């Protein structure tokens, strides 16, 4: 109950409404409307946004963000900066937002702050060729961090089916629940006469999109099953998963295996 109360309190504190520039119009040419982001979990990757308001038309708006303590930042479309959502221009007395892909390591705690560097040109840029020199400012975005309590992953496949006639690949799907799972590997064991194979003739299988499973994402691990020595019927396939969150983890599961004639 204390943990739930803490989470509710922190979320409430973080849910600061976006400032309204109209209430007291800022004197600055560009004003950051939210210096506090929504909370994240250590280990999480998410797209966060910062809103900006311009006093008059501006163009070529660009923001770079720098994290500390292992926090990394990515930008839309693989660029080296982020601009505004609608375009690189912002009409006077309106607002738009910039988004970043922020990855917080499991080692982070409490809160983290991104340093933002913002540049722009006054006026409509190339449209009217009336820029008056590059402008810049520095800003910060604080990201509260909440501890994650809950399951690491959910197995979504409960049954697989193979033909006795020939070996075949089956997939076992997982939903990431923890902020992120890394180095995911899965092995399976079944009845004595079942032959289990893995991609690349390896000793284990991982996920189709790699060995990392982000919270909220679904991915599947492939197994090659040779049931030629089994009689048609139902069996149990025992699964063992290893992965890393804030440390090494193990999990187990079961899948119903149906062997068809």
């Amino acid at each position: 109950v204390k943990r739930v109360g803490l989470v509710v309190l922190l979320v409430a504190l973080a849910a600061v409404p976006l400032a309204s520039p109209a209430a007291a119009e800022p004197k600055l040419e560009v004003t950051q409307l939210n210096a506090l982001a929504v909370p994240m979990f250590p280990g999480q990757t998410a797209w966060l946004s910062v809103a900006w308001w311009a006093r008059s038309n501006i163009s070529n708006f660009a923001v770079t963000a720098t994290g500390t303590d292992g926090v990394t930042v990515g930008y839309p479309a693989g660029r080296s900066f982020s601009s505004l959502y609608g375009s690189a221009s912002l009409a006077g007395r309106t607002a738009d937002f910039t988004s970043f892909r922020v990855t917080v390591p499991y080692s982070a705690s409490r809160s983290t702050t991104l340093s933002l560097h913002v540049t722009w040109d006054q006026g409509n840029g190339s449209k009217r060729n009336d820029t008056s020199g590059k402008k810049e400012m520095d800003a910060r975005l604080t990201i509260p961090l909440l501890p994650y309590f809950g399951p690491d992953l959910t197995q979504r496949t409960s049954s697989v089916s193979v033909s006795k006639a020939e070996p075949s690949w089956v997939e076992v799907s997982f939903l990431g629940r923890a902020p992120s799972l890394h180095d995911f590997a899965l092995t399976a064991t079944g009845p004595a006469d079942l032959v289990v194979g893995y991609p690349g003739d390896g000793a284990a299988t991982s996920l189709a999109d790699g060995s990392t499973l982000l919270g909220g994402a679904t991915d599947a691990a492939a197994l090659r099953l040779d049931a030629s020595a089994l009689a048609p019927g139902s069996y149990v396939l025992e699964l063992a998963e290893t992965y890393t969150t804030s440390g090494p983890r193990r999990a187990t599961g079961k899948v119903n295996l149906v062997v068809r004639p």
Partner: protein
Amino acid sequence: LSSDRDLRRLAAFALAALACVGVVGCGGSSTPTATAETATLADVEAARLCAVTGHAYRTEAEIDADLVERLADHGLDRAQWKRWHDSLVDSPARAAQLASASAGGCP
């Protein structure tokens, strides 16, 4: 007028009309005009700005999907939104509509 939204829209039109003062041919030149549709786009954009800054999205595509969904709720699409957004820097009337829609801040 039966709702706060109607009142806000009326205020947006009034501001837009004021913004037209001094703009040559506000209703008939190449300067994009403010209409009921651009007022709706301004409302959608203002609400979206609040939502986006108050949410951590798992993927970049979810940000786009949020916009498309909000537009679809009003019978609009992304191409209309993009044309409107690109017109803001050239249209004080439309910018005034957006400023008015955002004037209350976020809930």
